């Protein structure tokens, strides 16, 4: 038997406590101890930070500024308004950041899809990115839910297994980099949650009439669950507080639904090569249930795969006459819209599939005018007047009639 029954019986007979190795109580403390032993370097939070509470009560600090943006390949590649909105919010709040070229994907999507990798490779990819951030002095902020969950797994494995640390250290030495891990692994939605008060203070649109349903991302709150943010005032502390906390701070209304714990149907390999599963699960277990039980104006979530699957799966279901038709976007995109961001220049909603226009109208956004402005931008690019649009263009500072 693989289960160590005899050892457990011996321990029970001797009334010895049996070590519970299921989850590390305080990974930060473990990292600092390993640093004291010379095993690795811990990148410290070195700017103003906000304290939040995690699932089992551990305090986690979220650095507000000077952040190294670990981008998401799925966001940048297929739903770029997701990444752009995160940057835009940070600029709107006046916090500096670094958007690196010296960054790879976590490669987790491929790993969970195809298993064509191994723990050492995955840990080395993570640590290479951590080291790249450490070299700049900026603190990592992870855009993707899977990258965040996967990096938490990697951190646990590096803490637990000395042989893995030795292997990764040897690889990093060949790269001329140290084995470095940040003091906290922080997802952007945690930054948004921690700063939701500052975000709400810059609200320019009334969203009190907007009903939202929230899909909590599996790799945020199920993978190494002890590190996710919980708040006794949100769902009684029985569910992660991120996304919902932001929606409430902005003044919109959250409507709950019974299949909130279900995944979106992404499946990693399924969304790419076996989409019948993804489409069916996303629409039958999520979108239709949301429509029937909560009837929201918009579905908000906080991960790359979830936005993709829940949004893109609705077209085929509509062809089958299913009860679908809900716009899907990230918490960052919704917050940006509420703070006055342009729906196309910033939030890039033309990359989405489900119809978002009724939501914009309910938020008081003239999408027809906004689309005309974006088309005007594109003509400037086509004419050669500009090669690329920039942040001033995104905020309408270069418009003939001034900012939108």
């Amino acid at each position: 038997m693989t289960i160590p029954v005899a050892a457990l019986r011996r321990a029970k007979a001797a009334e010895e406590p049996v070590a519970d190795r299921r989850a590390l109580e305080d990974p930060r403390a473990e990292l600092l101890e390993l640093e004291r032993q010379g095993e690795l370097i811990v990148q410290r939070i070195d700017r103003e930070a906000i304290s939040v509470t995690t699932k089992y009560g551990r305090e986690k600090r979220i650095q507000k500024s000077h952040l190294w943006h670990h981008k998401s390949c799925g966001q940048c590649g297929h739903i770029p308004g997701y990444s752009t909105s995160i940057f835009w919010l940070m600029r709107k709040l006046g916090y500096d950041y670094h958007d690196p070229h010296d960054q790879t994907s976590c490669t987790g999507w491929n790993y969970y899809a195809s298993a064509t990798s191994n723990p050492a490779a995955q840990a080395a990819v993570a640590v290479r990115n951590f080291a790249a951030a450490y070299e700049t002095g900026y603190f990592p902020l992870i855009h993707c839910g899977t990258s965040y969950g996967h990096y938490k797994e990697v951190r646990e494995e590096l803490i637990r297994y000395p042989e893995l640390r030795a292997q990764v250290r040897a690889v990093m030495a060949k790269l001329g980099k140290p084995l470095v891990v940040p003091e906290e692994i922080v997802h952007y939605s945690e930054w948004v949650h921690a700063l939701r008060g500052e975000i709400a203070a810059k609200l320019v649109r009334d969203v009190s009439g907007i009903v939202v349903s929230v899909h909590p991302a599996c790799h945020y709150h199920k993978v190494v669950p002890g590190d996710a943010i919980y708040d006794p005032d949100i769902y009684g502390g029985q569910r992660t507080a991120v996304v919902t906390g932001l929606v409430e701070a902005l003044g919109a209304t959250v409507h709950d639904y019974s299949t909130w714990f279900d995944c979106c149907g992404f499946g990693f390999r399924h969304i790419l090569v076996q989409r019948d599963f993804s489409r069916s699960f996303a629409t039958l277990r999520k979108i239709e249930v949301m429509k029937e039980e909560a009837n929201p104006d918009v579905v908000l979530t906080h991960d790359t795969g979830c936005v993709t699957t829940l949004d893109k799966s609705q077209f085929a279901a509509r062809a089958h006459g299913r009860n679908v038709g809900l716009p899907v976007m990230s918490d960052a995109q919704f917050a940006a819209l509420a703070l006055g961001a342009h729906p196309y220049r910033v939030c890039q909603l033309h990359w989405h599939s489900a119809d978002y226009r009724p939501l914009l109208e309910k938020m008081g956004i003239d999408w027809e005018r906004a689309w005309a402005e974006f088309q005007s931008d594109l003509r400037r690019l086509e004419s050669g007047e500009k090669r690329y649009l920039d942040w001033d263009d995104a905020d309408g500072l270069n418009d003939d009639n001034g900012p939108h």
Partner: protein
Amino acid sequence: MTVTDSPRQDTDAHYKVWDVAGYADVPRETKVGLFEQVKADLRFGDYLYGCYECGICVGACPSAKFYDFSPRRIAQAAAREDVDLIYQQMQEDIWDCSQCFSCLRCPRGNNPGGIVTIMREVAVRNGLASAKQALVGYSRIIFKIMSTGTQVSPDMLGKDSFPDWGPETADVADNLDLWRRALPPETMHTTTTGWSVAESTLIELYLIWMETGALDMIAEVDPGLYTILKELMEERLEEAGFVS
């Protein structure tokens, strides 16, 4: 040998008979060897603690709602060291898992999704038929992530690639270059990668794939892709001053 005897497969209703299973039987020693590789993974001891038979993992599992798949059977087969069933799972079930880790709801602390991850790695390393079958159509994605450092690129949204995603996806394909140039972040004006990755970063990534054996893992399951990637990486590493 720690493996216990299990019932003969052709007389036990729990197992498919080989002529309907769709893959060939292998000697018992081969099955034992595969499971020994699973057990040897450094994570295995932290993924399996026992089973209350409560079925919470199955209730939470999206794949169990859609396929003949059960995270409980994954955990129990591993705990019983039932190598016949484990082999069957490695040839069929493991590729149904969504890797969402909803099964971590297990009150005993098991990680059936994690066990599946390990079983998949062993299936890939050993070139099992299920791994080859599961990765059909996936080669271009492995090539993309291993060679460019970003898995999802804008140009994957081809007009014919995602017809079930609706006409909006075709609009993206039609306007790809222009719409990418309209993005405010200067790192995201790319079409063949998610963002612009520095050349020196790619060299470091190639070293990681080669030094950790990740590249060698695909030699069995996709020899053609392995050869292409190996030549690409060795050439770039040599140009960068690393002796292959």
